[in-house]
């Protein structure tokens, strides 16, 4: 489904900065992978490269057998719209639109029938618990609600690969459990591949596999075994091993 080979990224500037070095990563269809690492380790950069919002300095990205970075601009736009779903760290909602309009935006661009759009939006909103705010504007909703709107927008066109940058960053533990539950059920039901960046070991424990990066390099990865509880513990251990302060990640939320 997704295959990265020797991807490196150097930010040019007054001082060139090497944000990623030789990243190899493969994600199967229907797999749910979490990426963790200390702040500034290059997680968002990696996600941007996969999402084609940024291009790698060297190396290759392959999604579904195609290299999106080699697509023409228009084809790329269509590709993003149809194959990929994004949940951004900063939501990236349009504040001139209402919640509902934000959610259906990707579909309107493709000329989907209004009835179909409404149905889909309604369904998603129901499962995310945001029906009540559908006609509100973005400044009238909470951070957590905005997060869920962003999730709804990313999922409305049933993408093959869903990319999420800290989808639970703004949520309390109850809400974050709900959201993770949502993501897992989509992942299982639609066989959507999921790549999620997170700081939250709780959220990461919902995935099949956690990949750790540090200073722009792959550090290690751990697979989920039988129990989520054990997986969670392993993640915490790995984080403290990596030098990040394990207790940083709210161990209270068990």
């Amino acid at each position, binding site marked *: 489904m997704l295959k990265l080979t020797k991807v490196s990224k150097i930010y040019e500037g007054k001082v060139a900065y090497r944000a990623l070095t030789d990243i190899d990563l493969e994600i199967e269809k229907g797999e749910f992978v979490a990426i963790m690492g200390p702040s500034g380790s290059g997680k968002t950069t990696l996600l941007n490269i996969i999402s084609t919002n940024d291009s790698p300095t060297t190396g290759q990205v392959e999604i579904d057998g195609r290299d999106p970075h080699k697509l023409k601009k228009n084809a*790329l736009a269509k*590709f993003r*719209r149809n194959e990929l779903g994004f949940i951004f760290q900063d939501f*990236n909602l349009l504040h001139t*639109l209402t919640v509902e309009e934000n959610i259906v935006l990707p579909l309107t*661009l493709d000329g989907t029938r*209004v009835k179909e759009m409404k149905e889909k939006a309604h369904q998603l909103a129901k499962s995310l618990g945001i029906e009540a705010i559908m006609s509100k504007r973005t400044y009238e909703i909470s951070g957590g609600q905005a997060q869920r709107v962003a999730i709804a927008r990313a999922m409305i066109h049933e993408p093959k690969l869903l990319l999420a940058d800290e989808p639970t960053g703004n949520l309390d533990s109850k809400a974050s459990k709900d959201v993770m539950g949502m993501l897992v059920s989509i992942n299982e039901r639609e066989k959507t591949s999921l790549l999620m960046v997170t700081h939250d070991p709780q959220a990461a424990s919902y995935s099949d596999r956690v990949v750790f990066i540090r200073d722009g390099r792959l550090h290690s990865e751990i697979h989920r075994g039988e129990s989520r509880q054990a997986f969670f513990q392993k993640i915490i251990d790995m984080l403290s091993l990596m030098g990040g302060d394990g207790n940083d990640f709210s161990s209270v939320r068990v």
Partner: protein
Amino acid sequence: MTFRQFAFNNVLRNKRLYIAYFLSSLFTVMVFFTFAIFAFHPAFSGGKVNQNALIGMAVAGGIIYVFSFFFVLYSMSSFLQSRKKEFGLLIMFGASNKQIRWMVFLENILIGFFATVGGILTGLVFAKAILLIAENVLIIEESLYFYFPTWAIIITFISFIFLFFCISLFVSFILRTNKLVDLIKGDKKSKGEPKASVILSVFAALLIAVGYGVSLYVEGLQVVAALIPVVLVVTLGTYLLFTQLSVYIIRRLKGNKLVFWRKTNMLLFSDLSFRMKDNARTFFMVAIISTVAFSAIGTLYGFQSYLTKGMKEVNQYTLSYSPWGNDSNETIENDLSIINGILEEEKIDSKMETLELTYFDNLIPDARVLVVKASDYNRFAALIGESEVHPAEQEAIVVEQSSAMLSEGPKASELLMDSPIALKDGTIVLPSQVVDTEVLNIMTGYYVVHDNVFEKFTSPDYRDFIAVWKAEDAGKEQLIEVGSKINEAIEYKVTAIDYQLYEIDKTFGPILFIGLFIGIVFFVSAGSFLYFRLFTDLEGEKQKFSSIAKIGLTDSELKKVVNRQVALLFFSPIVVALIHGAVALTALSNFFNYNLTVEASIVLGSFTLIQIIYFLIVRYFYVKQVMRAVM
């Protein structure tokens, strides 16, 4: 870092944000200043220019100033709108309201000061350019040389520093009323759509319809009486049109998901309604300003063509001479030889024809009528290439000059056609047809009869004399020279058409120039209102489009949205102004009872063309900017 340093750095580091506001202020100052340069030009204050023109200029100056005020105010308010969040954060971090107001005040004074100085400097260059154009295009006696405009500088400087001072005070007061949360969410929150009510929307349509109806219905002097009420009604109607009707329409469109959720419509309309308040005001101002421009230029152009075209049509001969009633034959002989002498002197080949005109009472009721021999008529006709007439013996041909008919009422020909002529020997001559020519140039109409019949008209009740000349391939300059010489030698008795047109152009030149200048200034400032409207929102637009591009937006979709957005902005007020202008010019032509279709089409057509070019240029740069942000 003191707070003052902070304020200063804030301006310097946020250049891009400030530049739109700065430029629009600078431009406004420039327009006003250029205008002031002309208003205070020594050539105009010398008293040679029509007093009405001066009043017109003063009024125009006032309008420009008022619009400047609103324009600067609007630019400033959208500018502050985009910075609300910044203020919110500052307050949150402990800046006092007083400090913020002081900062905004300082900033605005600073920007205002530099905009004023910059506007004056660019205005000097701009004025120089306009003067160059004016000198080459128009005949202006008191040549509009370039002078050092001390007065204009002083007036502009004081007016605008005062204006910026007032606005700065005003704005720092506005800030006080806002709550912190509102400030922080400022960039997400719309300034609000004006309230749209169905009743007011209908009222808007009604007002405009009534205004149009009245201005198209009234004729002659009624036009003057109707002018002010109609202007008020239409202005109010236009205001409501943009603030109510358009809001209402967009709301309806937004409410209709089939339309609103179709492809890129959502992006287009949501934005329109998000900025509806700003847009509605801008549209209103632009529409009114453009209407003023169209009408001013259309009126002057129409008036000039009314004066000159009529004269050109009526006066087909190069020169025509008619003596005073009591001039003796010697005087006439003498005059003719003077004229021929001057023509010879200037080496102009010309043909001359003379004729004794014979008028008769009693042919038609209450009037004296001229009767001309067919052969005489044909001599004159040949001179200006008109076709000859050959009336039968018992036939009279009625000649009239319809292009000279300015007044209303029954045509001269009707009366003449209805009056059979009974001669003393019992012969009856029947008027048979009307011929419309400029031969002989007699406004009231006359009979042409067969040479034989003419002999039977005995003892005319009144005699007059006419002599005409038609020059053969002489230059215009030459003819003007001749005209001027003849005019000096024999006052009032000679009509030298080229010279007279030249004189009209000369007196009309400065007035036309001022009108044209005012019109162009208005039009350009209307255009720049639109441009800066776009420019102010550019940063937000860039952000928006790059957000959407992340989800996936093709170039053609982006272009489509931007295109329509810019087109709507540029054309909706102009279309309204064009219609207003067309109606105004129609009313004007009713007033003069003179057909202005050609003139109006030329004026409105050229403005449309300019606007299209303007649109294409602005769109090009705007799309480029947005595309760059999306990349």
